[in-house]
């Protein structure tokens, strides 16, 4: 059951992205920025939390989920360490993802070459 909820939630979020791609001139980079920022803001407003409850990975895997993790981390950081936590909390929560991106990104770049396109 949670797989179906994940499927639908993730799928719907991607549909929103697809509409942005087809209907506007937004480049992928800008769409990613909009989504991560929206995820953080919606988390702060208490809206994204329930979506995560419902959709599980369907809400955390898409990029708004990255914003959710960052925002949640900052809120937790602030609870634990006061003002300083606003600066440390977000990155701490996302540390795994960010580091993985750097490390695997670097490795893949070293090991592979771009292929010509057809």
């Amino acid at each position, binding site marked *: 059951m949670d797989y179906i909820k994940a499927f639908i939630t993730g799928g719907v979020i991607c549909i929103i992205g697809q509409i942005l*791609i087809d209907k506007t*001139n937004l480049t*992928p980079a800008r769409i990613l920025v909009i989504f991560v920022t929206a995820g953080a803001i919606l988390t702060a407003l208490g809206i994204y939390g329930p979506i995560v409850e419902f959709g599980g990975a369907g809400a955390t895997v898409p990029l708004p989920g990255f914003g959710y993790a960052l925002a949640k981390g900052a809120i937790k950081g602030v609870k634990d360490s006061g003002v300083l936590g606003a600066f440390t909390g977000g990155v701490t929560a996302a540390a795994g993802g960010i580091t993985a991106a750097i490390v695997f990104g670097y490795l893949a770049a070293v090991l592979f070459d*771009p*292929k*010509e*396109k*057809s």
Partner: protein
Amino acid sequence: MSMHRMGGQTLLLTQNPPKIISRATIVGKKEGEGPLAEYFDKILEDDLWGEKSWEKAERRMYVEAAELALKKAQKEPQDINYLFGGDLLDQIISATFAARSLGIPFYGLYGACSSMTQTISLAAPLLDGGYADNVLCVTSSHFCSAERQFRYPLEMGVQRPPTAQWTVTGAGGVLLSVNGEGPCITHVTTGKVIDFGMKDANYMGAAMAPAAADTFRAHFEDTGRGPDDYDLIVTGDLAKYGRELTIDLLKRDGYDIEDRFIDCGCEMFNESQDVHAGASGCACSAVVLAGYLLKKMEDGDIKRILMASTGALHSIITSQQGDSIPGIAHAIAIEKKG
């Protein structure tokens, strides 16, 4: 008015109209699977061609096209007075580094995809006026080097919109001479930079169409000729939608070119090759001219062509700063006499 000028933008070459005595083309794998494959001298098996980078492969194609054109005319680099060339890359490194290998006095030109007719436009009057005997004009482009400079890294998962065009991987060259036989350049109409405010870099055909229409209009007005005076009217890379826009713009000026108008970007690939609107790149008009059109002229199928390669003159920075995309088109009239 200088004695060889006609109207505002056209040169009439009557003293010693330069002839195209030799031509050479080399294309990449995808181009070699297209409808014009049989007209190209060499087709690469892969676009890296054993080189260390796309850029190095592109300049190797450039050198190859130049050397092949010379070989076919039985000439050596020291017989050539000038090499005029350009490409799409920053600082036109393909042309420049190729010129380093070739050792011919060199003028590098940037006109984006308008390079082919742009280089011929400048070479022809030099020959007609007695300032040169042999001039080589070569341009190149490469899908992979162009994508990484102008758009996205190759391995990024992006969708190309229906109006997007595919940069041709290839190099094409022609050798113009005052001696020998071949179709000759009779008129040169220089384009102005025309900008109708299109900003979408994925819809370049629409950005360049106004320039093509403007140059053709200027040519007709300056020379008193009309579309009927030519067997074919050709543009470089307007692709499907840009082509329609050009027809429409010229109709409004009273010129109907529709029944004899072809665009190299539309001819380069088959529908099944999924290039969306069509081909683009300096090499697009270069290889179609040097491979296909000139062959048709040699065979006598076509006698007179009016051709304009078309270029989009934006850069990444201008697009990011919100500027629109200006276009330019340089026209040459080629005629097979006798």
